[in-house]
């Protein structure tokens, strides 16, 4: 049952309408997120030390494409997350990270194919590497905290999508950092444990979106009165 006349509520809202700063455009917000994130990646790389063969690996096109696609997936997923919480923006913007995500997956698939051609079934042997999951989580934690703090300022019009994209962004950054510092070249292992961790975390993030991103409750808004 309505406890208050709508016109009374309108008066209260008008009285409460202090000046607000419009949310910065998504591109600008990505830069605000990316700058400390890049510093964080650099700091982790310095502290943990880059993998010894990093320069040599970067000269390999497949590794360079995979690494680049991982980073671009993270950046574009953050951009898409920011776009998804601005009402009235086109929905295709939410799909922006998809091509980079597909290239990342394709690069890993190509690596698996090469392993198959060179070593046969031995090249696709999977070993347990559960440490990858906490490693990806640990390395993506700070970018994730910053990103979730930022996305709480938007409108929760698609909370599952926004939270899923934000988790994809942060965990792709974690996977990118892990690729720089961790010696692991079997594509099937990277596909299963690193890419798999990112996919699982993204699904978890999307599932918990409604919990993190909510409209203000009527009871909370009683402070207006």
């Amino acid at each position, binding site marked *: 049952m309505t406890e208050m006349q709508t016109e009374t509520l309108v008066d209260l809202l008008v009285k*409460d*309408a202090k000046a*607000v700063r419009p949310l910065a455009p998504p591109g600008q917000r990505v830069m605000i997120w990316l700058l400390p994130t890049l510093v964080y990646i650099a700091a982790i790389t310095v502290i943990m030390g880059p993998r010894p063969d990093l320069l040599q690996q970067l000269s390999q096109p497949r590794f360079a494409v995979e690494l680049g696609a991982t980073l671009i997936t993270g950046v574009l997923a953050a951009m898409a997350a920011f776009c998804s919480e601005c009402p009235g923006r086109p929905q295709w913007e939410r799909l922006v990270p998809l091509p980079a995500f597909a290239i990342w997956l394709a690069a890993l698939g190509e690596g698996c194919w090469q392993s198959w051609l060179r070593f046969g079934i031995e090249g696709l042997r999977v070993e347990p590497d559960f440490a990858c999951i906490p490693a990806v989580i640990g390395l993506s934690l700070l970018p994730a905290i910053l990103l979730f703090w930022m996305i709480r300022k938007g409108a929760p019009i698609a909370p599952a999508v926004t939270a899923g994209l934000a988790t994809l962004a942060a965990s792709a950054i974690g996977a990118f950092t892990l690729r720089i510092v961790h010696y692991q070249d079997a594509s099937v292992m990277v596909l299963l444990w690193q890419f798999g961790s990112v996919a699982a975390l993204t699904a978890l993030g999307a599932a918990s979106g409604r919990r993190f991103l909510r409209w203000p409750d009527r009871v909370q808004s009683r402070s207006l009165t």
Partner: protein
Amino acid sequence: MRAAQAGDQRAYAELLSVLLPFLRSSVRREWRDSEDVEDIVQEILISVHSVRHTYDPGRPVMPWLMTIVSRRITDLARRKGRKNTHEIAVETLPETFRYGGANTEAETREAQNAIGHALNGLPEGQRTAFELMKIRGHSLEEASAITGKSVATLKVTVHRAIKNIQRALLKNG
């Protein structure tokens, strides 16, 4: 909307008064249960107010507004559906005995008093959690947002509250 973002209360009042009839008709179109229209309109107004900073002054206002309106109508329909699965509206409370007149007004009042006493006897946290979820029909997530307690804590608190109410009712016969 640009003026409203800058804190111009007159412009904001004008905007909301133009918006109000439009909101009512949009909600009535989607929501046939006319009793709830004003409630939903109010929820949407609060939502629009709380995210007015997300409007990009360089973009048209209508797509921004319509997205919020349609999103909120869907959310509230889902919430109402969830609430309806737990509650049944009845004209008169059903009697607990087959024969008419078996439940006197005094007995009903007594039962209400007993429940009231049992509720009052609960610790503050348990009473709040019970009232929010079992009386007002909020979901665990909503109750968590209101009280600031975690969903797991609230689950345990409500369970304890129910046990304590049962114990108190049994004790008082």
